[in-house]
């Protein structure tokens, strides 16, 4: 058992999977340069020494190398392909959405596309094009699975599950969760470290995680906002509001069994999402819950419908925070003005 | 073996009628696959209907200056086997 941050846990996960299965390989920019960074967030640091033929550095060509990964996958390899910033997924989207997600269906089931796609998201002071939460653009694509770990234990387990799944899986991580340890920790990083067991384990791709049981309101978050959900629940407990905090974790498919059970129990759902409220994953969660539970009260705490600003006070206002979540939950439970 | 020559969907606007203008072959004529049988006028232009088979024109069933619905049988061809 070791305490690790997400970057290290992922590094171990990737190394273990590559050890276990010679078809697994990594492909992306700057991921295996000797003396380099191990990718933008150190995840692949040093892996090129252990697996010199299976850590492939690409030119700056996201559309191209996501297509290369897809082509390799349909011929039996198991690529782990990554972008340095989730925002760059837009460049690759034709290959991801029109090819990887659809080749099995269009072929009448002849093709398998075992492909893992990793992308860091979230606002971190770099301006609008290196800051977006990208989950919403992929959760609605039939043929893609989408997950979002909030801690090191889940990150490792989900990565392994994704590698072993025979379908295209997008794994989003939040840049502020990569770890307080490690070479490139961001200022403002939340502690997402976990105790990692020594043996092999997976976390299923289609299950949410109830972080704290409660009875009056269900607070749903993922990535950074999973931490906010839990922190808010703990603060609300002090004022006598019993909140259930859930890490949604599986964004496509949603774990509706867990989410509906929670919503049915509490009757009040608060969805916390970093990213513009309009058209977010929260909208899909809200609609899915309301269809099944007439009379359910649902509200969302999300970002304003603006591109991500640079100036720190504006970026902080853009990002949801625990104060807003607590206030909204209180209002939901006790009525407006309580 | 006979095949029906049906008015094909040549119009630019989906599903509009097409006018028979001028037959280029007579009953009894030998035709090859791809050979133009008649001229027709669509909403966009004058164009030709080709024979789908090689054989002999057995019957002509649509007259010039008459509008015909898409799919209507306008001729029959006895196909060479």
């Amino acid at each position: 058992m070791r305490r690790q941050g997400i970057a290290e846990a992922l590094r171990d996960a990737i190394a273990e999977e590559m050890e276990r299965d010679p078809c697994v390989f990594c492909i992306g920019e700057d991921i295996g340069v000797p003396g380099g960074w191990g990718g933008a967030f150190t995840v692949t640091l040093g892996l090129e020494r252990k697996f010199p033929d299976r850590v492939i550095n690409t030119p700056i060509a996201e559309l191209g190398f996501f297509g290369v990964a897809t082509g390799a996958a349909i011929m039996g390899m198991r690529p782990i392909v990554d972008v340095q910033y989730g925002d760059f997924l837009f460049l690759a989207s034709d290959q991801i959405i029109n090819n990887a997600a659809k080749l099995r269906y269009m072929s009448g089931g002849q093709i398998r596309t075992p492909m893992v796609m990793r992308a860091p998201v979230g606002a971190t002071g770099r301006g609008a094009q290196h800051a977006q939460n990208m989950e919403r653009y992929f959760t609605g694509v039939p043929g893609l699975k989408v997950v979002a770990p909030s801690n090191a234990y889940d990150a490792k387990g989900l990565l392994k599950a994704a590698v072993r799944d025979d379908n295209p899986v997008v794994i989003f991580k939040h840049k502020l969760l990569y770890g307080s340890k490690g070479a490139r920790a961001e200022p403002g990083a939340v502690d997402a470290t976990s105790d990692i067991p020594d043996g092999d384990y997976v976390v299923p791709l289609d299950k949410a995680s109830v972080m704290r049981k409660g009875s009056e309101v269900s607070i749903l978050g993922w990535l950074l906002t999973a931490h906010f959900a839990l922190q808010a629940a703990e603060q609300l407990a002090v004022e006598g509001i019993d909140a259930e905090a859930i890490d949604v974790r599986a964004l496509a498919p949603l774990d509706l069994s867990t989410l509906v059970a929670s919503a049915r129990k509490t009757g009040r759902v608060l969805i916390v999402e970093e990213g513009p409220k309009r058209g977010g994953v929260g909208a899909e969660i809200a609609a899915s819950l309301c269809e099944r539970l007439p009379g359910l009260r649902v509200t969302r705490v999300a970002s304003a419908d603006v591109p991500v600003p640079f100036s720190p006070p504006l970026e902080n206002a853009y990002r949801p925070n625990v104060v807003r979540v607590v206030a909204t939950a209180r209002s939901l439970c006790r009525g407006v003005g309580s | 073996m006979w095949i029906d020559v049906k008015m094909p969907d040549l119009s630019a606007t989906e599903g509009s009628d097409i006018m028979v203008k001028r037959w280029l072959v007579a009953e009894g004529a030998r035709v090859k696959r791809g050979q133009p049988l008649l001229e027709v006028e669509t909403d966009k232009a004058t164009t030709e209907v080709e024979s789908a088979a090689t054989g002999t024109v057995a019957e002509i069933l649509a007259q010039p200056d008459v509008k015909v619905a898409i799919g209507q049988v306008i001729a029959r061809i006895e196909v060479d086997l």
Partner: protein
Amino acid sequence: MSAPGESERRLELLDRMIRIREFEEGVRFLFLEGSMPGTIHQCQGQEATAVGVCAALRPDDFITSTFRGHGHAIAKGLGEQELLDELFGASTGCCKGKGGSMHVGNMRKGMIPGIAIVGGGIPLAAGMALAFKMQKTNQVVACFFGDGAVAEGAFHEGVNMAAIWRLPAIFACENNLYGASTRIDLVMKNPRVADRAVSYGIAGETVDGNDVEAVHAATERAAARCRAGDGPVLLELLTYRQTGHSRRDPRQYQPEAERKAWAGRDPIEIFADRLQAEGVIDEAGVEHIRSRATQRFAEAVEKARSAPQPSIDDLETDVFAAEGAP
């Protein structure tokens, strides 16, 4: 003096080209008659590129194709029945009716479903070649695309990566002078596609795409390079489309003189004439190949018209592979 079996191999090339022409002409009339759903993008006039390339490949080599893939499919070994069933949307089609004309393919015969996004198959092909290299299988992938795709970023990115990693990919550009209705010299300052090979540091060749034997020989050279580990090849195959871009296209953007000139260079006629001049076959023999192909098509159509359509239960299958599923 021809090598043993060479006449048979050459006649097989002719037979395959004629089968493609009969298929495409037959499908054209099925469409005009209103019998077939959807749309079609046909390849009459481009039989030599499809057949010449595929004949130089092994059964376990792969091809990627485009929305104009019927000819590639027949050249690679797919049958008229599985293709017609697919075009009729039948569940017995090569893709169970879920793909349609633009996505025909058969993995057991080495063809992935057509990629209908222009250029989209080029990075895919590079990836398939990467797998072959990593798995050390000595397989090759031939990637078909048109002159129009050369303008797409995907062309640049895919060819470049195949080049830097020396991947066993043959990038076969069927240059028919038009991207949809737009002439090539309006979209490229240098309309010689093969010239671009130099900028990627790879081998490139321009070939008479209407001479099936020239195409075949060029592809054999390219495949040998690939299997030797010398990297990808860019083949530019000069050809012409004798049919519209898609179903309702009367080709009014092709000047009459140009059309006539290319009609005089029909790839099937060129090769049939050559074989007759060399005494490999006579006129009756060519006619026999033609009527055999027509017959084959007619029989397949009859079956396809009554082939079973998918049931509603099939709508939501084949999205994901279950664990351990084939």
